[in-house]
Structures are given as structure tokens and as C-alpha cells.
């Protein structure tokens, strides 16, 4: 049943891709798929460990810049550069898991906000790698087997494959011992310690996996939209990714996908008046925190459990 629901959520952008044959909608579907990937990865941290990493966009940005640098300056194939960039992101994720050893809840989120701001400033002030606030334009699309850029509907299918792989991976992880351990830690850290669980090690592992997924999304994003700039990876983006997970339903496989599907296309559909987007996102953040702490899917599950 759950697999069916997941399949349907992932299929929604694909309906847009093949059903409507509209280039712009196909592009939006691609954007939604990348955000689904990100939201799933973020969920591994937020949903399954309870930590709010406001650094997520920054981590994605590191991989994005790294991948772009490898492809455009060093001439590497995108498919070789992407894992390297993502590995760099995972490494940064490892470093970022250090605050989690000492800091909890609010202070962890705050440290994340600070680190994210430092990332943004670094993206602007190390123009040798990032070209500063000007950004890097004309980033080529990922190449296919024939060496040319993958054309549009197929590229989005590749993105969908990434999402499916990530969701399947996270789903399997959650059923494994490791996943159950993470949930134990989230529910009661002291109990977990008492049971002899190495809290730090497990959490660090979650950080690394989640950051790797952020990195995959970052590399794909830059090459998909053809541009990398500091503002695509700033604290608001981190916050909005958090919103996608929280609004969809954290700690579930479907929730983040649903949240990304609902929220990610918004800025692209509101092209005429996008300042409204900030207001809508902000209001959504407030409303979700107030009334839907379990998110939409969490709410549906609860209703279902009751009936």
C-alpha cells in the first residue's frame, strides 16, 4: 500500500512529463523531482534523528560548485564528477555532525544557521571557485551515452530514477537495524545510551548519508538548471527544504515527497508575482508549526489510524 502511494507521488511529475508534453511543465517537474530528492535526504536527518539542519542547502551548494568546477574547468564527465562532488558534501556533512555531539534542539539549529551563513559568505567571497555573486552560467546539462546532453524528457526520467533509488535506499535503511537504532535515539537519547547504542556514531552515519544525498541533488540541480549561484544555496532555501519535509510529514517516506511536490513548483508557477511566494512559504511555515506538527501525511495517517 505504502509503496503504491510513494509510486503515485513520484509518478505525478512523470504525468506532467509524458502526459502534457509541455516543455516548461517538464522543467518544473524536473525541479520538483530534485527537491523530492533533497527532501528525502533531509528527512533522514530531521525525520529520523530529530535534528533540524539549517545547513542543508549549503551542503548541496558545496557539491554543486565542486561538480560544476570538475566538469567545466577540468573537463570531467558529469557522471564522474557527481559522485566526487557528493562525496565532498558527505565529508562536509561529517564535519557538520560535530556540533550535534554537543548541541541539542535549538542550539543545534542555531549553529546550523550560523554555519549556513558562513557558507553563503564563502560562496560569495571565494570567486576563484564560485565566481562570487555573479555565479556560474552556462553549466552544461549532464551527458548521455552518446556524449551529448541528455534531452529533456529523458533527463527528467533520470532524475526520477535518482528519487526512486534514494527513497528505496532510505526505506530499506529504515527497516534495518541502523534505522531502528536512529528512531530509538530520536525517541529517547538517554534510553538509547543505556541500551549501549553509540549515539554519536549512528548520528554521524545519518549525517554522512543525508549529506551525500544533498550533494547528489546539488550537482544535479546546478547542471539541470544550468546555473550555480550563492543565492540558490542560502539559509532561506535550507528553511524551505525543511518546510517541505515538515509540511509533508516528517519521519515518513511519503511525506517529504508530497511536501516537495506541493511546494517546489510554487515559485515557478507564480512567475508573475513571486514576492507572494515568500509570503506563502512564510505563512505555511507558521501554520505547519502551529497546526500540523506531524505534517499532511502524518495527519492523514493519524486519521486513518483512528477510523
Amino acid at each position, binding site marked *: *500500500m505504502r509503496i*503504491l*502511494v510513494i509510486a*503515485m*507521488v513520484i*509518478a*505525478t511529475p512523470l*504525468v*506532467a512529463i509524458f*502526459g*502534457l508534453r*509541455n*516543455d*516548461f*511543465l517538464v*522543467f*518544473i517537474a524536473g*525541479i520538483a523531482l530534485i527537491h523530492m530528492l533533497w527532501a528525502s535526504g533531509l528527512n533522514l536527518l530531521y525525520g529520523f534523528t530529530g535534528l533540524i539542519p539549517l545547513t542543508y542547502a549549503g551542503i548541496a551548494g558545496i557539491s554543486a560548485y565542486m561538480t560544476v568546477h570538475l566538469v567545466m574547468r577540468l573537463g570531467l564527465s558529469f557522471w564522474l564528477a557527481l559522485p566526487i562532488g557528493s562525496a565532498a558534501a558527505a565529508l562536509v556533512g561529517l564535519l557538520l555532525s560535530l556540533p550535534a555531539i554537543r548541541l541539542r534542539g535549538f542550539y543545534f539549529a542555531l549553529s546550523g544557521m550560523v554555519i549556513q551563513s558562513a557558507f553563503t*559568505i564563502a560562496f*560569495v*567571497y571565494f570567486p576563484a571557485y564560485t*565566481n*562570487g*555573486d*555573479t*555565479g556560474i*552560467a*552556462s*553549466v552544461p546539462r549532464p551527458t548521455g551515452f552518446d556524449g551529448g546532453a541528455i534531452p529533456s524528457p529523458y533527463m527528467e526520467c533520470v532524475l526520477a530514477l535518482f528519487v526512486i533509488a534514494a527513497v528505496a535506499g532510505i526505506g530499506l535503511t529504515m527497516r534495518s537495524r541502523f534505522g531502528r537504532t536512529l528512531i530509538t535515539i530520536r525517541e529517547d537519547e538517554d534510553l538509547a545510551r543505556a541500551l549501549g547504542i553509540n549515539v554519536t556514531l549512528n548520528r554521524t552515519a545519518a549525517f554522512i548519508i543525508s549529506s551525500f544525498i544533498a550533494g547528489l541533488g546539488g550537482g544535479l540541480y546546478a547542471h539541470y*538548471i*544550468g*546555473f550555480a*549561484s550563492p*543565492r*540558490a544555496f542560502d539559509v532561506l532555501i535550507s528553511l524551505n527544504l525543511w518546510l517541505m519535509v515538515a509540511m509533508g510529514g516528517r519521519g515518513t517516506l511519503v511525506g517529504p515527497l508530497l511536501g516537495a*511536490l*506541493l511546494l517546489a*513548483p510554487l*515559485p*515557478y*508557477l*507564480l*512567475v*508573475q*508575482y*513571486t*514576492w507572494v*511566494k*515568500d509570503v506563502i512559504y512564510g505563512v505555511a511555515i507558521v501554520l505547519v508549526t502551529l497546526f500540523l506538527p506531524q505534517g499532511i501525511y502524518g495527519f*492523514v495517517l493519524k486519521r*486513518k489510524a483512528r477510523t
Partner: protein
Amino acid sequence: MLGRFLPKLSVLVCAMAAMAGPALAADQPLKVGWNSELSGVWTFFGNACLDGARLAETEVNAKGKKIDLIVQDNQSNPAQAAAVARSLDTQEKVDLLSGPTNADVSLAVYGYAEDAKLPVLMPVAAFPQLTKPGTKQVFRMEPDAVGWGYAAVKFIKTMKSDAKIGVMMSDFAVNRAILAGLKYQAERDGIAIVAEMLFPQSASDATVQTAQMKAKKPDFVILAGGGAFDATLTRQMLDVGFKPEQLYHPYGSTKQIMTWGERSIGSYFGTFFDHNLPNLTEQGKAFVENFRKVKNYPPGYTENYCYSTVYLLNELVDKGAKGRDGIRAALREVNTKEVTTGVPIRFDQNGARIEYMYLMQLKSLSKDDFKTEKVNYMEWSPEVLPVYDLVR
């Protein structure tokens, strides 16, 4: 329950998306995709540009619709600008793009347009790389920023041949380009740069730097702050004892000039449109008046470029240019004059405007108007400067 709900939802989402862009194929007017900063940090410039363009659109369409501006917001965000370019291209099927006013956003549009073979006429974007060699699609109305630096040196040299200058700028792409041109030409013209200060984009105070600048005793200081810092920088320079005639602003929108304050009367600035120039064309004078009726202040260079851009397109339509290929070919051949100033418009093989520049001195300033004195007018070709090597 969810199993039945989700397919409906997906249909709904798609339907909503489909409604967002009506794909009506109107073949009569020229469809111009206006990719503009209507929100985010560059909102003011995006809106100012659109104000000018809308005025021209209304005038041009007074006797039947000839030009259709399809406006979309890029949030001052390059990634969004690339998406908007895509939307205008594939969804609206526009004949060409226009509208961006800022370097980052323009570069994103550049990237998309060159790939998608969609012509672009950039109204206000001074970053040189927008027309780097090999550019096929992009044409640029505004002279490039490296040239502004060059022009500043040339101008200062007319006042004092062995002048010492200082530079204080916010660290923005366009300012870095100005600085590059300035340094290049200063070295060749024997002008010494005694101090060079770049501020982070979040700077709000320059007390210490202005004192340091004072200590270096430059003859002229070139100022280009970003946003509010521009006004603060100007005031603090005057506070510390610099004379207005020592301050040189490479550019200034109407609102910016007004926020420098009355104490800055006598400052020099390089702008590309002055609403009280005696040699404005009749249409230029009408433009100033009509604009003032709507906004209570005179138009500046941003409004002028965007107004002129629409009129340039109108001229091309009158000459029979149609479709993307037609527009591109017509832009390559352009040899006309700006409707407001009579200054020539020609593009080189990369799409860069054959460059020109006015330099002004502020004569008076009130709440809703300013007057300047024409001091200098110069023309140059981009070839005199290795612009594309100076700035990456």
C-alpha cells in the same frame, strides 16, 4: 483513502500548472519576454526598468497592438531567471527576451539564451561578459562597466593630468568590472590609484575607511556603494571633509542621486541619461514629462534604456523583422539613434553597443528633481580596451 486522493491531486496540480501559462498563439504583435527583477534585492531596478518599458509599450500600441511585453519575475535570483527564461521560451514562445537589469541575473539569462538560440536585447546590464566574443544571441543597450572605469580616468585626466585617485566600492560584479577598467586605464594615463577599498555587500559604516582615505589625500575618489551603503558612503566622505567636486560616482539612478543629499551638489557622476539635457529629442522631452506625471520624479538611465529598448524593437517591427531569426538579423544590422537622446545605436559583432558616455556635475537637488550640467561626452569603441580579458 490516499490511494484515491493522490491521482486526483496530481491531476489538479497539472491542471493548475497548465492554467498558469495560456498558450494562445497570437501572431500579430512581437512577443517580448520580459525577464525582470520584480522581487528580491534588485526589485527597485527591475521595477524602474519596467516603468520605462511599459510607458513605451503603451505609446507604441496606441494605434493597434505591435509589441506585447510578457512580464515574469526572476526574484533577482539567477536560478529563477534561468527558469523564467525557459518559461518565456517554451511556454510563451516569445520572439525575444529582454528585461534583466543586474549582472548575475543577466548572465543566467545569457546562458539559457545562447543554448536555446533565443535572441536577447539586454536593456540595462553592464557586465562585459554578456557580450564576450562568440556571443550569438545577446545584444546590449548599455555600455559595459569596464568602459565606465576607462571613461572615469579619461575624464579625471582632463581636470588634472597627474591626479591621484582613490576607489571605494561595494564588492559587486559590476563594480569589480568598473575597477578593472579604471586600473587598466589609470596605469596607461599616469593616474595614480592611492587607495583601493572594497566593502562586503553587507557593509553599513565606512567611518574608518573614509578617514583612511582622507589620510591618503587623493584628488578624486570614485564611489560606488551597493544599496543603502552608497548614500552612507557619500555622506561620510563629505563628513570627513572631502569636497563634493572630489567625489565621482560612476553611475546613479534618480533615486540614488536624490539620496546623496544636497551636500553632494557639485559631485560628478557618469550617467547615461540626463532628463534636463538641452539636446534631448522632442520625444525624449515628452518621455520625461509623461514619466514624471506617473512617478513624481524624472526618469534615470534605467528607465531610459528600457523605454528606448521597446522603441528600438518597434523600429525593427516597422522594418518588417519577424520571428526569432528575423529579430536577430535585424539587431545585427541596427544603425539608428536612441529616440530620447539621439545618441547612435550600433552593435559590434559580439552584440556590444558601440560605447558612449556622459559625465555630469550635479548643480542642484530638490525632493523630486535634480539638475546637472553637461560636462563631458565621449564615445569609444570596445576595442580600445581588452574588456573580456580584464573581467572574468
